[in-house]
């Protein structure tokens, strides 16, 4: 179980994450919603320790995540795999190698620097790729595939870390609706089949309602809603976004079509 207590992070004078406390039981799929700048990304990055908190603690089981250093920190990052909005693959390397990046922390530094991965690891990577219909692009360079494929490659990379937790930061914000669906299905599949906890920042309420067991709403760095998708009523949406869902749709519609173009 992931336990967050009083987590705070400032950027200059701005409080990006403000005294956030949250418990996430193992195996849950949680959607974090809120306007741009509500602190969703910062929260996820704090959990993965890509950012350092100004105050508060993060615990995972008996581990104090906020105090980890060096090898222990890298082990934690391996245990909570991150999925990025921009995929963060290495464009010049082939898909297979990109997936094998997930094994780096399982290898000694020297052989990994020489690009040596074991046949077992390659088989593991190919298995993951095959699971998400990507086996045929395994040897293609990562900048030659579509955005939807890139994000699924990123999910495969995450799986090779053998994580207990997946942190997905706007995983579908750069994708068209069809690819967004495929990627969300993939995330739910690893949640259901592999029993991984998934924490997922989302822009669209409908997506969050459809795929998540639980929804957390953030506004100005604070958690203002925490409940089941069914509890996310019109009033609560207005609390989170300062606008009704219909108004939001009107706002989002042109953006959505732009992203698809």
């Amino acid at each position, binding site marked *: 179980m992931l336990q967050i207590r009083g987590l705070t992070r400032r950027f200059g004078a701005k409080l990006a994450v403000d005294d956030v406390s949250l418990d996430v039981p193992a195996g849950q799929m949680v959607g974090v919603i809120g306007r741009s700048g509500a602190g969703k990304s910062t929260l996820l990055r704090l959990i993965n320790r*890509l950012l350092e908190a100004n105050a508060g603690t993060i615990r995972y089981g008996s581990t104090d995540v906020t105090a980890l250093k060096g090898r222990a920190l890298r*082990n934690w*990052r391996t245990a909570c795999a991150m999925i990025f909005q921009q995929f*963060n693959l*290495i464009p*010049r390397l082939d898909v297979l190698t990109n997936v094998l990046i997930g094994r780096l*922390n399982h290898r000694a*530094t020297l052989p990994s620097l020489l690009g040596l991965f074991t046949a077992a690891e390659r088989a593991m990577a190919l298995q993951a790729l095959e699971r998400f219909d990507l086996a045929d692009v395994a040897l293609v360079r990562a900048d030659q595939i579509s955005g939807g494929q890139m994000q699924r490659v990123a999910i495969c990379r995450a799986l090779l870390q053998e994580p207990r937790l997946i942190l997905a930061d706007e995983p579908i914000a750069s994708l068209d609706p069809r690819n967004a669906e495929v990627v969300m299905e993939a995330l739910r599949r690893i949640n259901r089949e592999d029993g991984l906890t998934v924490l997922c920042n989302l822009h669209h309420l409908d997506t969050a309602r459809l795929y998540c067991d639980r929804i957390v709403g953030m506004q100005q760095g604070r958690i203002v809603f925490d409940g089941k998708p069914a509890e996310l009523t019109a009033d609560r949406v207005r609390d989170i976004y300062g606008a009704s869902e219909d108004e939001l749709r009107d706002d989002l519609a042109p953006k959505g079509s732009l992203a698809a173009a």
Partner: protein
Amino acid sequence: MSAIAAVEAQFRARRRARMLANLGYGGVLLLCLLISARVSEAYPGALAAGLPRVGEYFHKLLPALQWQHLLDGPKAEGSIAYWFYRLDSWSWLLFETSQMALLATLGGAVLAFALCFPAAANLAPNRLTYVCFRRLLELFRTVPDIVYALILVWAFGVGPLAGIMAIALHTVGALGKLFAEVVENADMRPWEGVRAAGGNWAQGVRYAILPQVVPNFLSYVLLRFEINVRGATVIGFVGAGGIGQELYQVISSNIYDEIGAIIVLIVLVVAVIDLLSEQLRTLATGKMAA
């Protein structure tokens, strides 16, 4: 209407201010130029007086070629072969010079490669590391290779080894800075991806940064090789090997036609190496950046 007039007036005022500022900068620049000319004694009169003598020197360098003997053997006065009568030893010296440059470039590049990553602001683990490595590279760079050569000739004796080490030392600083700047321009999203997957610093460099920067590194190494070939031709002046040593001797003995012959050879070799290296550079950046 009045709003338009107000914006127009504002626009004019701003343009006037900018023009005045430009005039001011121009004035300061002119003043600086005059001062530096005075300090360095770069007077127009001296320039006019000395210019014809440059031509005179070049005239002296010209060999006494004769049309009817132009293609005769090395014993016939006035033939090209007579002019280049020591072509064999000069060729060897030029080859030695290019090999000095090659070794120095490779050696310098290897060390620059090792030093450039902590000297890049985006990868240095902390500010102190960054500053230390940057200053270290500056230290290598600020001493001209000819000064290194003077010191090293004293230590290692007359010969190419001193020259190679001198050029290599300067190359470390020059290439290290350029490498670090290439690294600073790299896309950091792959880096974040590797680090977030639990990769350590070295693995991040190897997988996220290296694939992006290698083509530019190669291009800079080749460019540096071109510069070093030129540098290696003069470093012999202080006894550090190569064609420069020979050139210095014929210059100090006033053997004009030999000076001319050697300069022609140097220009030819440097031009050929430049052309080849340029081809390789476009190959490196073009193919791998595609």
